[in-house]
């Protein structure tokens, strides 16, 4: 028995050692880094909460908070709406071949960096296909990613293109697990399709939707690849999320201490939102 326990521990040990060395220790180390300042010579000095105090009066930090949440909420709402709509369509189209179905779902398997390259060309303000389509419908062309006003909605739109299929995949799983008897009962009672959706399907889907919200929130709050590849936070800091700001502070300006404080703050925000949504998940469970 003793050896059995020992063997189990030995099987799990490599993963535990790896987790401690590559995950737990670095997190603790970041917490420490967030309390120090690096001088030009590389020497460190302990500044206590100094880096955190500096955030309060840093307008780029507050701008980052606003941009992060603007992008997060806009993207999340769009993806939940389009994702649910796509899931309902695919759920009804029962005769759609599996291969076509997986094509519908495929965009989020593409690297976000490639999605960024692709949309950079499509959304080019002067030669892009998007503006050609807009103007041929008599609409004014847009500056898209080059406009401080439109850059966040444009990023949200690109992310929605890529990740609505992922939300659809999750919602589809939820739809398939709904008891068919509920629908049959509603149909016999003569409830219209619209009414069935609002009164029956949507409430029963709520737990699934909250799950999708949790999974998307974690990614959206630390939105990085797409922004870094397209705008790097510009124009005029209009897409400078906390994550991008923290990264640039650390690896372009080499203020590792302040960057650590920014990342600790962002991690706490992600954790907080996740915990709140988890509460919500328990509240809507059935």
């Amino acid at each position: 028995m003793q050896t059995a326990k020992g063997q189990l521990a030995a099987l799990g040990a490599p993963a535990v050692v790896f987790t401690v060395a590559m995950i737990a220790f670095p997190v603790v180390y970041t917490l420490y880094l967030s309390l120090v300042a690096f001088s030009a010579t590389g020497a460190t000095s302990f500044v206590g909460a100094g880096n955190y105090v500096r955030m309060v009066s840093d307008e780029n930090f507050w701008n980052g908070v606003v941009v992060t949440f603007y992008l997060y909420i806009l993207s999340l709402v769009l993806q939940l709406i389009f994702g649910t709509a796509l899931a309902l369509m695919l759920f009804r189209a029962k005769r759609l071949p599996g291969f076509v179905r997986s094509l519908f779902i495929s965009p989020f398997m593409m690297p976000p960096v490639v999605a960024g390259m692709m949309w950079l060309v499509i959304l080019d303000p002067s030669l892009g296909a998007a503006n050609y389509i807009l103007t041929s419908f008599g609409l004014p062309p847009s500056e898209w990613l080059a406009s401080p006003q439109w850059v966040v909605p444009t990023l949200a739109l690109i992310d929605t293109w890529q990740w609505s299929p992922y939300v659809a995949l999750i919602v589809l799983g939820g739809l398939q697990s709904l008891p068919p008897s509920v629908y049959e009962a509603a149909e016999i009672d003569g409830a219209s399709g619209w009414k069935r959706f609002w009164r029956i399907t949507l409430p029963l889907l709520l737990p699934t939707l909250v799950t999708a919200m949790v999974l998307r929130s974690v990614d959206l709050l630390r939105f990085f690849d797409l922004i870094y590849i397209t705008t790097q936070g510009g124009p005029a800091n209009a897409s400078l999320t906390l994550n991008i700001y923290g990264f640039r502070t650390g690896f372009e300006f080499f203020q590792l201490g302040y960057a650590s404080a920014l990342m600790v703050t962002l991690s706490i925000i992600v954790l907080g939102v996740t915990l709140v949504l988890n509460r919500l998940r328990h509240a809507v469970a059935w």
Partner: protein
Amino acid sequence: MSSLANRPSDRLIAILDVVLLVAAGIAVLAPVAWMVLSSFKESYEVTAYPPTIFFSPTLDNYRSLSETTPFLQFGINSLIVTIGSTALGILLGAPAAFVVSWTRITWPAIVTLLARMAPGTLFLLPWYVMFRQVDMIGTYGALILTHAVITMPIVIWVLLPFFDNIPRSVFEAAQVDGCSPVRIFWRIALPLVVSGLAVSSILAFVFSWNYFLFALVLSNSDTKTLIAASFNFIGEGSTNWGGLMAAATLIALPPLALALVVQRWLISGLTLGAVKG
């Protein structure tokens, strides 16, 4: 009684369903089609305005990609890092998932999940300092180790339900016969979860291949992965859209092809068990 009255509106709904589905299909696939089309266009054609849909295709962009950039070397780097980190993820994650399933001690698995939630920069800052101290920045080793932080949680969470599905009586019978846990893992459990191993390695491969941030900082010009090198292609791409789209197409090809292979298992794998597929 109502079936007769319903018929015309039923047909209308059926038509509407098809129209919506086609519209959704265009919205999802048209940008990708545009990317692939552009990659086969001559340089004067790719920036033509109004954009052209019909043109005589050329492979020039792909050819010049291999001639004027170290595209092949970046591709090999990507493969080394991706395969290395996938293997390491399996090596660490498979026994760990078995132990979690056997003992029901879940905290190590939850810690790895937290690692998936934190912004990558949180780890990157200390890693940068750590790897600089041991002079590992720019090495494949640093890239494989850091990418395993992405792959190991995927392996653990995908394999866990597969191990859970093996009846406990199988393990108990083996134990009565004097089988040690290591032997049970290696001889009995692992062969029973081969399909889980396949799904988890493919998902780990895709996510490691797609990962941008770590290689952006920890690679150098010799070990740069394709994803990290994308950044250079964009700099050059302002004058050469055809080349940029050819690079984008090639980089997206492996994960998209693999995704289509494992589409049946995508749900449970991608949601880390949060949704039953």
